């Protein structure tokens, strides 16, 4: 197994990841990892480099399964000036991700077989696996169901109208029932339109003082409550996107205790920023759901610590630089996330790295069926024969976020100048070293 085989496909260089600590679902152990032909060839305490092998130094680093983002806006097709599959997956690779779930709110939206196939084909040369999510309703208009069975046949595992919630309880009930027979997951962007109205930030002390129309926490919470009731009623399966309030987290905690098929993700900005960031009216800090008070931030962290929350998902949402020059209430919501998520989790959460990796890699992989049990090659474990989707993390390295140095086509990170701990050194996607020493290789 130590010789390059010379086979043409699947190929890729032979790699030795040397000196690190392997961390996956089975625990942590000091080991070198040999990668050949796109797969993990061996995991041993000491592996001699075969002739011609690329050596990736991992001294002091953690060798983990590649990260899996459940919530990425790649913007292609339709808004290629803000992000493309190529630039978005390059940012993903630099962030340690080897798979991203691409949200369907593109233009056109991913609500048809043609649209899904198009993104799948565009993703063939990407530097991370792109798992295409489909829309729940045609045009994401919340009026009638998209052809979910047909899209499931193309490999779509997650459906969402993200950017908007499905407003009609009756339609959501039908969607949950229909999805049950397809083995797919519905993911809800919880935002009741009649409560959110034109709210541009969290409704509370800061919105009142700044005179910015707010959206109340209840706009999120009523839809979480409704969908838990619908999940119970339909014996359905629901995933809650980017939960942000203490009450939402508590409802999920209780639904899980009850045994309902409910999962939840939170975004890094909801555990690392508060509504106070909007004080300067800078649209960089406009996001849906909005930044919340510190008490909600604490509840999100607690939900991550106690297992209520299943995944950290970026909600990576690129926007053109000129949108930052719009008035706060007219600017599009959303912020970049792929290159800062891991470091924010390491820096802001008081969790062991193994738990952070569970939230960023194998739990989201399993949630959406990208793991080996679901037939995929993401989320580990790192054992011989497994597809080589790996990241190497230096958990103690510190770095400063520089928007102009990000690989994304957009620059809208709210963390400019922030000093973070935890850096991705190398990323291996299907055996290819797409990131070496924090540099994208293509």
């Amino acid at each position, binding site marked *: 197994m130590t010789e390059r085989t010379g086979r043409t496909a699947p190929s890729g260089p032979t790699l030795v990841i040397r000196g690190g600590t392997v961390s996956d679902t089975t625990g942590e152990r000091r080991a070198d990892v040999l990668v050949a032909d796109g797969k993990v060839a061996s995991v041993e305490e000491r592996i001699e480099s075969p002739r011609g092998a690329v050596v990736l130094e991992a001294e002091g680093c953690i060798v983990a399964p590649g990260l899996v983002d459940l919530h990425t806006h790649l913007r292609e097709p339709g808004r290629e000036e803000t992000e493309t599959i190529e630039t978005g997956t390059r940012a993903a690779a630099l962030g340690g991700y080897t798979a991203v779930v691409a949200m369907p709110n593109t233009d056109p939206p991913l609500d048809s077989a043609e649209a899904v196939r198009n993104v799948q084909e565009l993703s063939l040369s990407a530097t991370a696996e792109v798992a295409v999510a489909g829309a729940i309703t045609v045009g994401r208009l919340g009026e009638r169901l998209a052809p979910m069975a047909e899209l499931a046949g193309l490999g779509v595992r997650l459906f969402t109208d993200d950017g908007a919630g499905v407003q009609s309880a009756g339609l959501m009930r039908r969607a949950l029932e229909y999805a049950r027979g397809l083995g797919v997951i519905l993911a809800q962007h919880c935002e009741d339109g009649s409560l959110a109205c034109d709210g541009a930030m969290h*409704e*509370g*002390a800061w*919105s*009142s*003082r*700044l*005179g*910015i*129309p*707010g959206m*109340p926490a209840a706009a999120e919470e009523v839809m979480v409550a409704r969908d838990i009731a619908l999940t119970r009623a339909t014996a359905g399966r629901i995933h809650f996107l980017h939960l942000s309030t203490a009450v939402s987290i508590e409802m999920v905690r209780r639904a899980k205790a009850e045994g309902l098929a409910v999962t939840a993700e939170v975004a890094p900005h909801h555990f690392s920023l508060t509504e106070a960031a909007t004080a*300067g*009216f*800078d649209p960089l800090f406009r996001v849906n759901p909005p930044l919340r008070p510190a008490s909600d931030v604490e509840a999100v962290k607690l939900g991550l610590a106690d297992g209520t929350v299943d995944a950290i998902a970026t909600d990576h949402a690129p926007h053109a630089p*000129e949108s930052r*020059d*719009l*008035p*706060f*209430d*007219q600017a599009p919501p959303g912020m970049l996330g792929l290159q800062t998520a891991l470091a924010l989790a390491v820096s802001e959460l008081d969790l062991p790295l193994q738990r952070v990796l569970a939230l960023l890699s194998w739990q989201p992989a399993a949630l959406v069926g990208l793991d080996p049990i679901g037939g995929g090659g993401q989320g580990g474990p790192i054992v011989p024969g497994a597809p080589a989707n790996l990241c190497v993390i230096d958990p103690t390295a510190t770095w400063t976020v520089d928007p102009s140095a990000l690989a994304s086509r957009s620059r809208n990170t709210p963390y400019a100048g922030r000093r973070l701990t935890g850096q991705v050194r190398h990323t291996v996607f299907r055996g290819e070293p797409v990131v070496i020493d924090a540099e994208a290789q293509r």
Partner: protein
Amino acid sequence: MSAFPTHLLSMEDLGPEEITEVLRVADSFVEVGRRANPKVPTLRGRTVATLFFEDSTRTRMSFETAAKRMSADVLSFAAGSSSLKKGESLRDTVETIEAIGIDSVIIRHSSSGVPARVAEWVDHCVVINAGDGWHQHPTQALLDLYTVRQALGGGDEGLARLEGLRVAIVGDIRHSRVARSQIAAYTAMGAEVTLVAPSTLLPPSLEGWPVASVSHDLDAVLPKADVVSLLRVQSERGSGAFVPSLREYTAGYGLTARRAAVLQPDALILHPGPIVRGVEIASDVAELPAALITDQVSNGVAIRMAVLFLLLGQGPAGGALRD
């Protein structure tokens, strides 16, 4: 010289000393306004531009009159016919205006925070907030304070009587930039502010607001009020959905003749205008001697002259020296 801020963005940026300074400087400009030729050379050679992205005849005329009485050159930027309509961004518009050599921009915008953002973009131009969204309208609050001080005897005596004054702000506080500025202005000068409104027209949170009390009972507040400051029901901002009907609003919160009769004899009635007669104020109440609505308008010019003087008029090239 006091620590007067570089820009006038929010009443919260002004402390009692700065407010007092504005009021005292305004005294001299009120005097100028009474002259046969009400013009001074203070801002000769300076250029100010009004950028009104939201219609407002009254405030724009007041600012432009103030600037002209100080001999400034005044450019009026009409957002409706501007390059913004052609797709130019707000930031590019502002940077163009600054490049032309404008000393000060007076901005009105329907979105909260626009003057604050513009202040971050400019290098030397002085930004004056003429009303942004629901956020702030500082010169309105300053002219209200000036008008009350004048009615209380003017000068230092009137100023001293602001302390402990009981002010009721009545109406659509939720959507009101005027109310947010008034609350900061009155409380900075030691007045006690009571907000009177149906719950739907109050801000969602009053956490950190320096108000003494909140009431839903105008009849209980009026006999104890020294100043009643009414706000317009802003139906164009969707206030309509916040009360069942204007009729019901007037029944609960309108200053009718019957309600005006229970006011203390020396109580003052203010309204930032434009007034909607028969809704927040009865027509005959608006004509009472206690109603200072036209004084507010005329004092507005002097207050804006004072603000321009303090921001731009310090020395022959005050604005340029701020770099």
